[in-house]
């Protein structure tokens, strides 16, 4: 294990790549660029866990063979988790096509709010570097930023790094229940428009009315912080470049409608000034899977393979629903990133690929330890803004295979097909 600098971090969608790591026997200590996620991720000691079949230690070959047998018998398999790198996503898609499986990333419908909004209204978007250099005013909707991406303030919002603000402080307005997690500085001014989660859509609606100078019903706004929203609206009209940022997880049950409202708001603001929207997405490799799934199938996820066709049903192909309703008969879980995400006990034959087998509190039929991309093996992950990808590195000699290798071995072990299609 060597010391490493400029290390890309795979553990959230922010895609920091400035970490300095120092190897120790129990994992890596982070000397620069630490956050709660990277500490947990890089701090993992190398795993020597063995594969298990029905709870008993087994060779990788035996586990792969058992997994192929279970999948070969399944009629409605489900591939979920899907927290993996580009190569793992490609391999998962190959296996799903071959086994005519359904696929749903572990973020489920929460990760689909942006997609559904895009398919309804489109939008106007910006990226991390544009926001960092240009945005005079940033709205953080339903998030304070750091709850989703711990280093967002340091890496992106800090005004001292802005190339085009001429030293002016950046204003950041948090709309929602969470307070800002930082205090004002010369470069960064925070404001909190406090409202409960269920009022965030109403606050955004009121903001749109204020910006468009439409009449507002007093009864509908009585619970809203209208003075602050009115001030914000007038400030929004003044800035040359603004950004509207949302954390998909914090938007509630009908988040797609809220994202659509935010996107159309951003679109209309561009009639006069420049604005861009940005989702703090991409944790657990959601963006990585979405990108690969799009170029491979034409759809962003929530798909089912049927013959040579791909069926896209964003509301129906829901891993939780498929499992609880008994409409899947085999689950494959692929989770190669954070240890917090593990599948709940499934009532159907289950194949679990995870770097954290010891944390699983139930016994799947097949359990295969895998490596973490960016720690145990090289790979590519995609940042939340979809534009930038990170060259993940292999930082240590690992005994654990990459998810892609295991999935391809399972694919190779499947019984021969009755019909052939490429």
């Amino acid at each position, binding site marked *: 294990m060597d010391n490493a600098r400029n290390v890309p971090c795979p553990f959230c969608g922010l895609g920091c790549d400035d970490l300095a790591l120092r190897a120790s026997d129990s994992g890596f200590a982070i000397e620069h660029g630490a956050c709660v996620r990277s500490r947990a991720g890089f701090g993992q000691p190398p795993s020597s866990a063995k594969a298990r079949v029905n709870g008993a230690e087994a060779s990788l070959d035996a586990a792969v063979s058992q997994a192929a047998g279970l999948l070969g018998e399944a009629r409605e398999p489900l591939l979920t988790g899907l927290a993996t790198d580009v190569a793992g996503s490609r391999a998962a898609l190959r296996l799903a096509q071959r086994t005519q499986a359904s696929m749903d990333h572990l973020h489920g419908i929460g990760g689909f709010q942006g997609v559904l909004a895009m398919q309804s209204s489109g939008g106007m978007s910006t990226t991390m570097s*544009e926001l960092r250099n240009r945005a005079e005013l940033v709205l953080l909707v339903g998030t304070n930023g750091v709850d989703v991406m711990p280093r967002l303030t340091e890496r992106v919002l800090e005004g001292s790094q802005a190339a085009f603000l001429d030293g002016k402080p950046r204003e950041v307005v948090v709309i929602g229940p969470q307070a800002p997690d930082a205090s004002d500085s010369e470069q960064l001014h925070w404001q909190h428009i406090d409202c409960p989660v269920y009022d965030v859509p109403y606050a955004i609606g009121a903001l749109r009315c204020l910006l468009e100078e439409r009449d507002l019903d007093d009864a509908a706004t009585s619970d809203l912080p209208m003075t602050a929203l009115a001030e914000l609206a007038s400030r929004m009209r003044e800035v040359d470049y603004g950004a509207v940022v949302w954390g998909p997880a914090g938007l509630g049950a009908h988040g797609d409608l809220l994202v659509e409202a935010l996107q159309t708001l951003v679109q209309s603001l561009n009639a006069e000034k420049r604005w861009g929207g940005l989702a703090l997405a991409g944790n657990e490799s959601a963006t990585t899977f979405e990108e690969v799934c799009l170029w491979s199938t034409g759809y962003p996820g929530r798909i089912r393979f049927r013959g040579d066709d791909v069926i896209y049903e964003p509301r129906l192909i829901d891993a939780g629903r498929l499992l609880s309703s008994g409409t899947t008969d085999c689950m494959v879980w692929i989770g190669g990133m954070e240890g917090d995400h593990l599948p709940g006990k499934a009532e159907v034959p289950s194949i679990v690929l995870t770097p954290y087998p010891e944390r699983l509190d139930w016994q799947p039929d097949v359990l295969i330890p895998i490596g973490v991309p960016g720690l145990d093996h090289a790979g590519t992950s995609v940042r939340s803004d979809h534009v930038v990808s990170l060259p993940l590195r292999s930082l240590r000699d690992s005994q654990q295979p990459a998810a892609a290798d295991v999935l391809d071995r399972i694919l190779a072990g499947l019984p021969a097909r009755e019909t052939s299609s490429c």
Partner: protein
Amino acid sequence: MLTLLRGGTVYDPVQGINGEVRDIWVRDGRIIDAPGADAEPQQTYELRGKIVMAGGIDMHTHVGGGKVNIARTLLPPELRAEVEDSLRGPVPTAWETGLEYARMGYTAVFEPALLPVNARLAHQEMGDIPIMDKGGFAMLGNDDFLLKLLAADAPQAQINDYVSWILQATRCMAIKVVNPGGINAFKFNQRKMDLDETNPYYGVTGRRVLETLSTAVQELGVPKPLHVHTCNLGVPGNVETTLATMGATGGVPVHLTHLQFHSYGTEGDMGFSSAAAPIAEYINGHDNVSVDVGQVMFGQTCTISADAMLQYAAHPHANPKRWLAADLECEAGCGVVPFKYRDKSFVNALQWAIGLELFLGVNDPWRVVLTTDHPNGASFTSYPHLIRLLMDRSFRNDRLSSVHAEAQAATHLASMEREYDLYEIAVITRSGPARLLGLTERGNLAPGSAADIAVYTPGDDWEAVFRDASLVFKDGTLVVRDGKLVDISWGVTHWMQTEHDAGIETSLDEHFRSHYAMGLANYPVRDDDIEGDGRGKLVAYSCRRER
């Protein structure tokens, strides 16, 4: 393995072969000289009466990079079936892209608008396109680093070093500029930028960007002339800008892309007219200019462009009404706007006619490349139809007689007698783009070249002929028979190796620290990003530096 393709009628413009009956011998993926009378081929294909050409090369087709995925997201699946001639839709998957190209006898595709910071992912997406060779053109000219250098009057040598560094870092084949300086200006809320207008922040004109980048490309020795999507795309009256752009490089080679969208006048009651004639005339008189057309075809498509400024301006035309524009990483932008071209629309019908006027008006086929700017003018799957329009005047005029009546009156198309012959089709779909790109071993059937070969069965309907190739060989392996895939291969990624002073990285490092949310060290594409899946392969070309 020795293979003989016997007795086909060969069209290979690079060798000047125009419809001669020839044998072609292939060994280990390469075309070879006839090995002598006693050589026994392991495999022989009898091609008497068949048309034999090199594999097709699409020099400008949007097949990789984030904007293509945005289009896939935006374009509703229910509209895909409406696209003529194909169930695949205007924005197919990587897999379908390879299949549909291979079916038509194409063997190479180039993504012409690769955002440098997106290079790794774009290459990985293109890596999933089967059969095809691929490559990218790295976009510069709206990136803050270049504009900062220009604003500071940096010496040309430093610009050259940067351009070279970008080619290496992105593993790209050529340099593209889109709306020079304008995409950047849009981020400072400028809504329009002509060639001699200045970027509001840097005070740099589009002309200056063009001059500097075209000079850099020439001095680095990159064969492919600067690929230029000039200002005012789609704007009536943009002919003046386009003529100025062609003259802006002072004789240095320049390639104007999707020229159809830049060939508009303002005459007539509708304030929209064809300016194809003066533009074709200019090209006919200036050997340093090459173009691709960006032909429009009727039907549903999705326009995708780095030109965020003009795509934003076009958003009211979105059909269906969902669109996206984006500012991207201090490098460029993009705009994705679904669009339906209708033959009963005056403007759309005239766009269609203008494209054809350009094809027929430019005399030298070596400087015109057949493109639809996929998917902007139409899907690449419409190429066979386009080839028939070029080869068959009565078919063309029949089609013309069914479009918007006033558009018919506004075009000279009906009187244009030219019909492309097979030799010229081979030039504009293979040999010409190969020569422009500097691909000496592709786009021809000379001994020593790669055995990328397409075989067609002649017939009265050229669209049917070019829809489904009879046989397609990729690097000597038979991959398509009668339009159907019979074997899989993955092609290579072509890229241009250039030289520069490594000192440029000092300035870049400083710029990355001040502008990027990513470090310089992690920016360049690693060879393993392309080859690590075990099937991708990089092929480097060396440049001769002219200084």
